[in-house]
């Protein structure tokens, strides 16, 4: 069974005929070829590598069907940098060596981007708690936590600039 769906991804509209059973993550990776979203578990929602934003809310794209995203707006890791300029969080990740193999990184960036919007000045414990839906096997999380902390401080400074 196929269905026509329209999904806006990183601001661009995609009209596609897809199987009802196609997972959203497979739609992103295989249908529209945005391979920055990764799969690390058996579609059980544990590893978090496939995290994307659905209308601004982080979701695990392996736990959704593409047809469920019909008419909705998605942001993937490819949508974080603007005009080739890394987001404050992405930049902070590169400066803190918050990634090694990079496989989990997309999901963590998507999760943490939204987390810093909802909690602009988090404590370290809050940062760690916010990451329980993402497994990183390389870094031991130390540099990831540091990168998110730095990004929070820089985002606060940016907001202060804008307020002035």
């Amino acid at each position, binding site marked *: 069974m196929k269905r026509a769906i329209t999904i806006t991804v990183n601001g661009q509209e995609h009209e596609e005929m897809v*199987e009802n059973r196609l997972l959203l993550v497979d739609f992103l990776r295989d249908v529209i070829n945005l*391979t*920055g979203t990764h799969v*690390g578990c058996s579609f059980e929602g544990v590893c978090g590598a496939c995290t994307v934003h659905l209308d601004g809310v982080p979701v695990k794209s392996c736990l959704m069907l593409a047809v469920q995203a019909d008419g909705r707006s998605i942001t993937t890791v490819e949508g974080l940098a603007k005009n080739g300029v890394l987001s404050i969080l992405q930049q902070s990740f590169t400066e803190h*060596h918050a990634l090694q193999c990079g496989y989990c990184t997309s999901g963590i960036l998507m999760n943490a981007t939204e987390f810093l919007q909802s909690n602009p000045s988090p404590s370290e414990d809050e940062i760690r708690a916010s990451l329980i839906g993402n497994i990183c*096997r*390389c870094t031991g*999380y130390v540099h990831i936590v540091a990168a998110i902390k730095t990004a929070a401080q820089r985002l606060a400074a940016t907001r202060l600039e804008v307020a002035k």
Partner: protein
Amino acid sequence: MNAHIRNEGDWVGASVNRKEDRRLTTGQGQYFADKKIPGTLHLVFVRSQQAHARIVSINTDAARALKGVVAVVTGADIRTQIKGLPQPVVVPSFAANYPDFWPLAVDKVKFHGEPVAAVIARDRYVAEDAAALVEIVYDPLPVVTDMEAALAEGAPIVHDGWASNEMFAMNYTGGGTPESEAAHARKVDEALAAAAVVIRRRFRVHRCGVTPLEPRGAMATWDDDGLTAWITTQRPHIDRLALSDVLEIPSDKVRVIAPRDQGGAFGVKAPFYREPILVCHMARVLGRPVRWLETREEHLMSVSQERDQIHNIEIGADASGRIVALRDNAIADNGDGCEGVYWGFVMPFFGAAVLTNAYDIPLCDIRIRVACTNKAVLSPARSFGAFAARFALDRAIDLLARELKIDPADVRRRNLIAELPYTTATGVHHDSGDYAKVFDHLTTLVDLKGFRAEQARSRAEGRHIGIGFSVGAELSGVSSAVLVSMENQPGFGAATVRVDPRGKVQVFEGDAPQGQGHETSMAQVVAQEFGIHPADVSLTTGDTGTTPFGSGTIGARGGSYTVSAVANACRALKSKMATVLLHDLKVEGVPSDVSFRDGRVFLTADPTQGKNFAALAERIVMAPLGLPAGMQAGLDQTEFFEADVPMLTFGAHAAIVEVDPETGIFKILRYVASDDFGTVINPIVVAGQVHGGVVQGLSNTMFEEFVYDENGQQLTATLENYKIANAADMINIESHHEAGSACPHTPLGSRGLGEGIPGPVPAALTNAVCDALAPFGIEVNRLPLRPNTIWRLLQDKAASKG
């Protein structure tokens, strides 16, 4: 070069942001699953639901009939089409029983998850539908999942035709004949009998591993050029030779490409596995690209499983805690043992061989027996084989200290190797450094004296805090002297460095990194040598069509062997460039009179006389006229680095915990590592290796466990059940390397690191928990270390006191 003092333009020793990270933070990485070829067919394995059973029949009719299915194959189909294993290139130089096997089970299945059939279809969804339609009739056989039961008389035999399940056995220290072994054992008996104190314990380390976040995969095409295979692998050049042998394709017709980006491996992607063989074979048979993308469930059922050892240890010491003799009768559970290169047993073999590493224990009696069982084969995991052995020995040393009422840190330090070089009873060469200094730095970092005072105060208040130590002397690359016997492969590090006419430098490395940051570290070294910027250096890895032969990214070879080959290649090219400069300037001199700095090559004595690096490169490559007599044109250099002696990297770990004796729940308060990494190329990358390695070790110790039930059913094939530490489970790991010193055996003074980091972790943590609970007198000698096991031990202790 001192790692801690940096001058302008010094790239070695600088925390340079990684070159890899822009693409990896923007979703532009190119991992295995991201590579697509139009028209690719997808292969899905049908895996055994039984742990041990005869295959009575396989009905593939319904699967074949499904629309979109191209082929269904079974073991019976392929056993006549391709050679099975073993094949020499992936067999170590050890006497052992090597089971015959094919990519798909033939006649019988030996573990839950073994590939039995494969479906090839137009897409993965269809292939999975068809796989569910393959009907297999099994005749169950008795199952053996316990290593000691497997070695007992009358046990079910895993491999047809074998007299027992013993795959490998070794006496490391007995001299090789029955008489010499008996005499040696008597000597150890006597020393133990004469010792002031003897500790005899059984240490059990469970089955767990390293489980990279990216699963495995293989994709192959077949055309006039032969076979091209993209494989998630740490060893593309070895895979190429092995595929050539197994598929009987001339090696010049086989190209293996490890993707530039790999989502972690930690050893798991080093073996020559069955699945890529079948993918390559089917691409040839069908004449179309074929791809297999492993699911997490398959991964957890069939690979990433390591440790799983028992060590029966006796250590005797004098009253000061100085160890006079050691005996270890080790046993390992190898699963079915069907895996190229390692065959499961190479890890426990190595673990027992490095049991006494870092310690001066000259009189040892060390033996191991490795059993096949109805479980998945052991596959390599960071702290290769050594994780369990280190736990056993460093726990035993704490028990010894407790018996003697001496601080475990003192007993440990008293037994560290004091004078280097040193060769252990099992023949492991320890090259250089100052182990005591690195260990003393650790006790300073944790303020051991201050901690003991705080501990006494806390106990008076009813709080139970404890500290635990452990050490490691782990691989810093693997020399040919070791690797040829262990894996039938060379240990040299290989690299090609090419300076192009624009002054840009290309480096080619035959290994296949998986997140270690080679693009950055190698670029830093090249930039340092040539006096250019790391941005002007690019690295190509993993493609057997373009890179020099190397045995793979294993055993912390990057920072020891491979980087040394890169440095030596740069130095050879510098000598050539300097010679041309002197020749062109008509100046008498030797290459060492010439400096490379800030993008220029010039006379050190007169910096005005020189040339831009790029201009000199262009002159040599593009205008090779009037070169010094006998000199060839071009600026390509390939170097094969072999250290003069095998090298190790020493580290010491401390854990500080607080335990609630009511519940057994413990909290890690601090975790500190003090290491000798030699000259550090990129401190932030090095810190990342330590953080990640320690957390893997903690996760293994506290959470991860592969569980098989009595029928051999694997109960932990999802990440829901196979629990891996998350950020909230962990704390900030502290990494220190300032007590280290330059390694005298490498051109940069660097050592390899990363591989062995998890090794000291389980003993450090367990020693800390036991130290905290010292008033209760409990001993934890088996892993995993969990609140419920601690609670149970406390209850049993209380009950026995009645």
